[in-house]
């Protein structure tokens, strides 16, 4: 809600009222959409898949990266090398 308009602060978002500069929203993705996270070289062999299929859950709090959930391994991973498929609305 920090980057959405509100009647209580005029002509700016709460984030701008707090920080003083306009927030960027170019990293927004549809919650729950399919995301392919890159598997680093160290974690695969020559013919292994280079990406794992995940679900987008949000933005990492501590790093500049996305939070994804892999339903197969049932683990949350943090990755910044992600291709999103938002076409399946």
């Amino acid at each position, binding site marked *: 809600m920090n980057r959405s308009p509100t009647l209580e602060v005029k002509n700016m978002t*709460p984030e701008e009222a707090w920080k003083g500069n306009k927030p960027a929203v170019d990293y927004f993705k549809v919650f729950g959409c399919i995301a392919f996270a890159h598997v680093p070289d160290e974690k695969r062999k020559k013919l292994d898949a280079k990406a794992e299929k995940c679900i987008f859950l949000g933005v990492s709090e501590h790093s500049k990266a996305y939070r994804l959930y892999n339903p197969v391994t049932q683990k949350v991973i943090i990755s910044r090398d992600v291709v999103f498929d938002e076409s399946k609305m």
Partner: protein
Amino acid sequence: MFPIIVGDGADFQTCFTAKVKDIAWLWHLRYGHLNFNGLKTLLQKGMVTGLPQITTPSQVCEDCVIGKHQRDSFPKGKAWRAKQPLELVHSDLCGPISPTSNGNKRYFISFIDDYSRRTWVYVLPEKSEAFSAFKSFKALVENETGRAIKVLRIDRGGEFNSQEFSKFCEMNGIRRQLTAAYTPQQNEVCERKNRTILNMVRSMLSRKAIPKCFWPDAVIIGASTY
């Protein structure tokens, strides 16, 4: 109609008023505790016959209060607004939310800065964790702005009224504005924000048919990012 014994002036006065009052009360009771304005209307507009002249007594009918008392209305748009960040912080705990998440989270606590209306949320496994959430929130925002939290507006939930919580507020010079008991209306900013957050979360989970136990992720991204 009524015999009046004419004595000296003072006696006459008291006797007279007592009679009139009795009639008013009598008709008030006969009409099932109809309010005196109602009786007056009946009388003035001539809606019924047989009703004598009535003057409104100044006393309160005890049984009417017992039978009809209701809540006072809440003023609208009268709340003062903070002039600078952290002058006033609203907070509320929401939950328990079922199902519990994969990380055993059942509650979330929101902090709202009144000046900017920026929101911070923390998901908690238990209510008792609210204190540590508040401490980390306080450290975060005070370090970020260089200002101190002045007033904290919260409800009378047990999570905010523990000994250590009140002591912590006292030590840090935070004035607490507790809402009156059973009056969430006075914590309006937070309650409305919870509604917005949960509306958002329900829509987001429904769209992609995500299992409900993923609600903490939706709450965090919905409240603090979007």
